[in-house]
């Protein structure tokens, strides 16, 4: 039984990392303002939100599993305050930090209609800090660190997020490339084509 908690905590941590990767990639996809991954825009936004909420569920499982696991001996304190743990305080601290950041992002998102778009967006930028912190936590703290499959998972996640950020920073990310030509009223388009000849 005690082993079950331990395995559950480890597994749910990895699942949460994969989900957070999906969340970050879809968040960037949503920001691009175009249909992405074959989904209409509203669906990109919905899957982004739902994957994030699911990640929270797995993270709660991850933390509760470790709180009750006799081997991990996580103190409640460690769940909230980073970098003071007994075991690998720095790497564990990344996990706590990621949890705090994610809590801030999710809570402000759920309340965003009251907070207003500016405050919500400001906090949402923290996602770019939260994800790498979570990745580091898994690589440095997990009991599975150094296993080939955790490396493979982490590298795949890192590749996906790096590609998404590269796209985000590229010139073609531009606000709505799909609409660019539509910024010209259709009635005027033939005239423009004529003029550009």
């Amino acid at each position, binding site marked *: 039984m005690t082993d079950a908690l331990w395995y559950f905590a480890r597994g749910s941590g990895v699942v949460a990392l994969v989900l957070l990767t999906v969340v970050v990639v879809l968040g960037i996809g949503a*920001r691009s303002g175009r249909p992405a991954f074959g989904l209409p825009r509203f669906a990109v*936004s919905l899957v982004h939100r739902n994957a994030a909420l699911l990640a929270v569920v797995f993270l709660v499982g991850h933390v509760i599993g470790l709180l009750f696991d006799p081997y991990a001996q996580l103190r409640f304190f460690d769940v909230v305050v980073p970098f003071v743990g007994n075991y690998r305080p720095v790497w564990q601290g990344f996990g706590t930090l990621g949890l705090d950041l994610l809590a801030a992002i999710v809570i402000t998102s759920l309340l965003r209609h009251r907070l207003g*778009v500016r405050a919500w967006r400001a906090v949402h930028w923290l996602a770019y800090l939260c994800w790498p912190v979570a990745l580091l936590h898994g690589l440095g703290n997990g009991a599975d660190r150094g296993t080939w499959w955790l490396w493979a998972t982490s590298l795949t996640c890192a590749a996906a997020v790096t590609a998404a950020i590269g796209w985000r920073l590229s010139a073609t990310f531009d606000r*709505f490339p799909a*609409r660019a030509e*539509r*910024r*010209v009223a259709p009635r005027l388009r033939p005239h423009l084509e004529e003029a550009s000849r």
Partner: protein
Amino acid sequence: MTRLHIDWTLCDGRGLCTELLEEMLAEDDWGFPLARDGSAEPAVPAPLENAAAHAVSRCPMLALRLVGRTS
């Protein structure tokens, strides 16, 4: 009667609302939502209230609001 308020100072023409509320909104040539009935603050028919609430919740700019039941 519930009405859909579009805050034009916030709207960025992302078009999520027109995907979700095709019955009420059409995209103009720049991707901004226009009420099909031509009004500035279109009335939401009862069967569409749910869809309108979804549109409000998905708008990434928080530009949409449901207002009033003052019929």
